C-alpha cells in the first residue's frame, strides 16, 4: 500500500479517537487505579506500601485460593482439549453439507447465557438430577451421590462451558492443514494413528495453544460457574475479589487480589504466546 496522505492520516485518527478515548477512560484508567489503590497498607488508604501483597502471599489460605484457581483453569484446559479435539477434527472431515449443523451445535452453547449453562449442570448433578437417576437405576448406590459442590464438578462444568472456545480456534487451524499432507502420509504407508500423531497433531499445535489461552483466561474468571457449582465452601479468586470489595469493603485488599489474578493470567498468556511463536516456526521450518 502507498504511504498514507495527510488527509488519510487525519481520517484514520478521527475514526480511532472515539474508541481510544473510551478505552483510556473506562479500561486503562480503571486498571491503573486498581493497581494504585492496591498499593495502600490500610483500608482507609492513608498509608502507601506493599502491605496488601505481603498480606496476600503471607497467608497460606490466600495462596491456596490462588493455586486452586490456577489449577481449575489448567484442568479445564486439559479436559476441553480431550473432549474438544475430536469434535474439531470431526468437523474438518465431515462433508460440507453437514458442517453447518455441527457448527450450530458448537456455537449454540457459546451464545447461550453462562448462567443458563451453569444451571444445566446444577440440574444434571443435583440430588434428583440425571446422574443420580442413572446411578439409582443401575443400583450402584443406595443414597443419592453428593456431586454438586465438589472440585471435580467445578472442573467438568467449567470445561464444558468454555469448550467452544477451544473448538473454534482448533477448527480454523485444522481446516487450514493441506489435506494432501494427510493423503500423502497414508499413501506412503503410515497408518491412521501414525498419521494423526506425526502429521495432524503437530500441525494443529498453534490452534491448541490459541484455544488453551482463551479457555484458561475464561476459566480463571468464570465467576458464575465457580460460585454456583463450587458452592460456599470452595472459594476461587473472582469470588474472593467480590467478597473483599463488596462485603468487607476492603478496597486495597480486593485490588491486590485482582492485580494478583490479572498478573497470573497475563503471565500464563504471555508464556503460551511465546510457545505459540516457537511452534509456528516449527510448523513452517
Amino acid at each position, binding site marked *: 500500500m502507498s504511504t498514507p496522505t495527510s488527509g488519510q492520516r487525519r481520517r484514520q485518527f478521527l*475514526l*480511532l479517537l*472515539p*474508541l481510544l478515548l*473510551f*478505552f483510556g477512560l*473506562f*479500561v*486503562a*484508567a*480503571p*486498571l491503573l487505579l*486498581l493497581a494504585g*489503590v492496591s498499593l495502600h497498607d490500610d483500608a482507609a488508604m492513608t498509608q502507601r506500601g506493599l502491605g496488601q501483597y505481603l498480606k496476600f502471599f503471607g497467608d497460606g489460605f490466600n495462596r491456596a485460593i490462588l493455586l486452586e484457581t490456577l489449577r481449575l483453569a489448567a484442568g479445564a484446559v486439559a479436559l476441553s482439549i480431550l*473432549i*474438544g479435539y*475430536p*469434535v474439531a477434527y*470431526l468437523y474438518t*472431515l465431515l462433508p460440507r453439507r453437514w458442517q*453447518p449443523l455441527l*457448527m450450530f*451445535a*458448537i*456455537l*449454540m452453547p457459546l*451464545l*447461550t*447465557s453462562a*448462567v*443458563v*449453562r*451453569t*444451571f*444445566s*449442570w446444577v*440440574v*444434571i448433578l*443435583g440430588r434428583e*438430577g440425571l446422574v443420580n437417576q442413572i446411578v439409582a437405576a443401575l443400583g450402584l448406590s443406595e443414597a443419592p451421590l453428593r456431586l454438586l459442590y465438589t472440585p471435580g464438578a467445578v472442573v467438568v462444568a467449567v470445561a*464444558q462451558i468454555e*469448550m*467452544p472456545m477451544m473448538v*473454534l480456534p482448533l477448527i480454523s487451524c485444522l*481446516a487450514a492443514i493441506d489435506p494432501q499432507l494427510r493423503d500423502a502420509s497414508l*499413501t506412503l504407508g503410515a*497408518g*491412521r494413528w501414525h498419521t494423526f500423531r506425526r502429521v495432524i497433531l503437530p500441525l494443529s499445535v498453534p490452534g491448541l495453544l490459541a484455544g488453551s489461552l482463551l479457555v484458561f*483466561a475464561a476459566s480463571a*474468571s468464570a*465467576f*458464575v460457574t465457580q460460585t*454456583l457449582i463450587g458452592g460456599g465452601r470452595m472459594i476461587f479468586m473472582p469470588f474472593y*475479589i467480590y467478597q473483599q*470489595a463488596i462485603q468487607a469493603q476492603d*478496597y486495597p485488599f480486593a*485490588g491486590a487480589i*485482582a492485580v494478583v*489474578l490479572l498478573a497470573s*493470567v497475563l503471565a500464563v498468556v504471555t508464556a503460551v504466546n511465546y510457545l505459540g511463536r516457537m511452534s509456528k516456526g516449527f510448523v513452517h521450518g
Partner: protein
Amino acid sequence: MADISSPVVVRPRPARRPSRPWDRWSFNAALGVSAALGVLLLVLPTAIVLVTSFTSGYSLRFPPPGYSTRWYEALFLDSPEIVDAFLLSLKLALWASVLSTLLATAAALALARNRALWARLLDSAFMSPLMLPSLALGLGMLMLFNLMGQGLSFGTLLAGHVALCAPYVLRTASASYAQLDPVLLDCSHSLGASPWFTFRRVELPALAPGIATGAFIAFMASLDNVAISLFLSDARSEVLPIRLWHIIEDSLDVRAAAASGTLVIATVVLMLLMERLTGLSRHMK
C-alpha cells in the same frame, strides 16, 4: 540377459492400507465415539434445561414427572421482579451493542489494514478486555466512579458493558475488512468518489455481515454478563443474569428453569435468524 524389446511393466505396489484394516477401523471408531461424546456434551446440558423447564413438578427432577407450562406462566404472570430484570437486561444489551458497534467499527476501519507497530499494539490493547478477568475491570471501574464522585446508575452500567462488548465487534469487523479487496477502494477513489461515498457504497456493504455478527455477539455477551454488572449497577436495578444467579444460589426455584428455557429458545431463534441474514457461522471461525 532380459529381452530389452519387451515392454517393462511397472506394477504399482499394492497400497498397504487395505492390509491394515484394524488401523483404519480402530482410528475411525475412536474418533467417531469421542467426537459423538463431545457433541453430546455440548448440546445435552442445554437440552436438559429446556426439558426440565416444562416440568409439572415442584423440583428440578430429571426426567420430569410430567409436563406443563405452569412455570412459564408463573414466570411471566406472577414474577414482576424477574420480568423487570429481563427488560432492564434487554435495554442494556441493546444500548451496549449499538454503542460498541459504532465505536469499534470506526476503529476497525482505521486499524484493520494498518501493519504499523502502534496499530498492532493498539489493536491488542482494545482486545484485552476479552482476556482480562472482568471482575478486575469491574472493580477498577467502580473505584474510578467513586473517585469521580459519580453515583452508580444506568450510565455507569452501560459504560462497563460497552468496554466488554467493543472487542467482539472489533474482531469481526476487522476480519471482514481484511477480506475486502483493496483494489475496490482504489477503483472507487480513482473514479472520483469521495471517501464518504466510498465508505457508504463500497466498504459498508462489504463489512455489514461482519459488523452485524459482531453486534449480535456483543448483544448476547452483554445479556450474559455478571462480573461487570455486579460492581456497576445501582441498588435498585438488577440485571437478569444476576437475578437468576441469586435464585439458583438461594432457592433452586423452578422459575429459574423457565427463565433459562426462555433464554435458550430466544438464543436459538436469534441464531437461526442471524445465520439467514449474515451467515453467522462463517464469521465465527
